[in-house]
């Protein structure tokens, strides 16, 4: 058995250390070692995007990242999106717009939408659909998700300047 590795990384702004085997994925360690169970396991092969987290600012499928690769990285998970008890623009738009049903895909969609709006604050419907193509939802039919991202984009623009704690 390969020896466990000691990994130091940053998750949601905090320095975190953990032990993992080389064969463990980032998704496994987030959920099973660090109890960050907001990140969901869907297909475990990079098709569905349920496990999306941000790694050094880029969205990645955490099921296709080895936990050892997180050494010295900066990670953001769904747990780091809200500001204390205040949902951020994307979260509240998903909630108010009923952009979810069973909720398993939702953390991945929110992380992917966060990445999109950081890169492109005012995306067109087509740009939203293209950017979210790596996230699958079997319940909503996507329209409400796209609308929620549009709402969140508008809200973020009117609220810009009022920075959250993260």
């Amino acid at each position, binding site marked *: 058995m*390969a020896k466990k590795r000691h990994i130091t990384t940053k998750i949601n702004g905090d320095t975190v250390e953990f032990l993992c085997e*080389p*064969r463990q994925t980032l998704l496994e360690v987030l959920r099973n070692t660090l109890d960050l169970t907001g990140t969901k396991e869907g297909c475990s092969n*990079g098709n569905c*995007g349920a496990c999306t987290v941000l790694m050094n600012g880029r969205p990645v*499928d955490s099921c296709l*990242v*080895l936990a050892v690769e997180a050494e010295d990285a900066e990670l953001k998970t769904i747990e780091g999106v809200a500001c204390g008890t205040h949902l951020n623009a994307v979260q509240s738009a998903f909630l108010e717009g009923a952009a979810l049903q069973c909720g398993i895909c939702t953390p991945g969609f929110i992380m992917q939408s966060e990445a999109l709006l950081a890169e492109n604050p005012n995306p067109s419907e087509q740009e939203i659909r*293209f950017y979210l*193509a790596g996230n699958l939802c079997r319940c909503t039919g996507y329209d409400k998700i796209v609308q929620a991202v549009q709402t969140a984009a508008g809200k973020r623009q009117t609220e810009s300047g009022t920075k959250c704690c993260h």
Partner: protein
Amino acid sequence: MRDFEYEAPTSLGAALAVLAKGNARALAGGTDLIDQVRLGRHSPDVIVDVKKLPELNGIQHDTSGLRLGAAVPLYKVYGHCGICSDYSALADSARIIGGIQIQSRASIGGNICNAGPAADSTPSVIALGGVCVIAGPNGTREVPAEAFCVGPGKSVLQAGEILVEIKFPARVAHSGSHYRRFIPRNEMDIAVVGVGASVVLADCRQKFVSARLALGAVGPTPILAQAAGDSLAGQPVNEVTIAKAGELARSVAKPIDDMRGTAEYRLHLVGVLTQRVLNAAVARARGEKIDNVPGH
């Protein structure tokens, strides 16, 4: 997942030393490898992370051409202005491989080494005259991209070897390139057929000087359609010459029937896509913008 050791060397020499120990596989973005290890398709004892090797992670673009490190992630490929303008087909491919999450990690080098018959980057690399630079225990060797894949999932890489970078010649005046695939969805799908083309036009922009065409998903490996490209040299740019190139491209395609389409359907698509891709490459060579929204 199977148990393995993980190494992340910071020099090419150190990486080759680990690879030389045997039963090791290189990890770039891992979007193919991690899934394949999980499924048991590969059973490495050591995984060698190549993302800390400077030789594999740079983009060097100057008057002598382009050197693309094998592990450079796709988002950096289509985010590079020089690649978008001078090696457009490569950027076209990078934009449609997987979704955005995959593009954060996956690389052109990894896509080629995975040696999938339907790989979206390989036809572009072949069309653009890419040369694969391979390092191994016996030094460095170069293999033209069209000779790199030898069968589904199989490449010329020998045990202990690693793809370091892909070299492309400098873009010449009045040249343009494009890659397009046919899929039944708008995005996130595997090509039914993919075609990459690179053309050079004469100063008058009405005649071909040369052309290179490559086909994906219509054979056990991506295919250089040499005769189709050669047929355009010295010919006027028109429907007749472009249709003839489409016919010649069809003649080298060896598709199979599978869940994505019948062989007959794929042959038809080769003809249609070859013409569309050539027309788009010509438009780019003339400095025109093409209507190419990824996924549409």
